[in-house]
């Protein structure tokens, strides 16, 4: 994700069409994924993103620069998506519990309690090219779609779209600790999915 141009807002206010076209192309993919957290279909998400950009255009002159412009755009998006969307169902979906099956670790009566059992330790995934195969990309993409909603959005913004943690906290209104928990649980679930597919 390129660093935000500090003069971007001025250029948009001045009617710079290239700046607007560029920013819409750069940010819309991540906006679509955030919108998908609120609405049921891809086409509804497209409508939400379009409406968000129109909302941004309407209130551009009122933007005061207290937040990063991109964060502000995503907040406009979230407000519109909430109005469109299913309510905050699944909000508290699993934030507790282990991310690796406890049965893979040794019992308390073992000399090394809590260490990997020999027959359940993670096995090598083999050469990296394997991971790049379209087949595994498809497995990963499907598993990502199936994560609990907040885990999915955090993992997508961080790992697919390259946002940093601080910005994700700002635009999803998360504490840093919660953001890390969601990221951890989502990544761990996806690792487990790849493990099943690769070993």
């Amino acid at each position, binding site marked *: 994700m390129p660093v935000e141009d500090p003069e971007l807002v001025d250029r948009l206010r001045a009617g710079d069409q290239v700046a607007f076209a560029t920013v819409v192309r750069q940010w819309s*993919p991540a906006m679509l994924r955030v919108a998908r957290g609120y609405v049921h279909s891809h086409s509804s998400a497209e409508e939400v993103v*379009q409406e968000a950009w129109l909302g941004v*255009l309407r209130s551009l002159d009122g933007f005061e620069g207290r937040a990063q412009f991109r964060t502000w755009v995503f907040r406009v998006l979230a407000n519109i998506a909430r109005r469109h969307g299913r309510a905050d169902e699944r909000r508290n979906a699993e934030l507790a519990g*282990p*991310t690796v099956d406890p049965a893979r670790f040794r019992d308390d009566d073992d000399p090394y*309690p*809590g*260490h990997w059992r020999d027959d359940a330790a993670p096995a090598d995934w083999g050469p990296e090219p394997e991971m790049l195969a379209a087949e595994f990309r498809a497995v990963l993409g499907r598993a990502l779609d199936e994560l609990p909603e907040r885990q999915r959005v955090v993992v997508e913004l961080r790992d697919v779209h390259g946002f940093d943690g601080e910005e994700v906290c700002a635009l999803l209104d998360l504490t840093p600790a919660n953001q890390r928990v969601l990221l951890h649980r989502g*990544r761990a679930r996806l690792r487990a999915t790849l493990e099943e597919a690769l070993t």
Partner: protein
Amino acid sequence: MTPRDVACIELVELLTDYLEGALPPDEVAAVEAHLDLCEACRTYLAQMRATIAALGRLPVETLPESVYDELLAAFRDRRA
């Protein structure tokens, strides 16, 4: 000071905080001491990193061209 002992079952839950730079220095030392000795956890960490890298290479969806065109038209109208 010798870093505290961390079992694998605990270590796997510390890895995102470790990768995020969110652990205090004594916990970083404990994680790294464990990783030095434990090949299975090094493999697990490598798999977390491989997962993250694979996520970074997923194709992303974008808006249809017609929507871009409408947005650009709205932007031009805003100036009119």
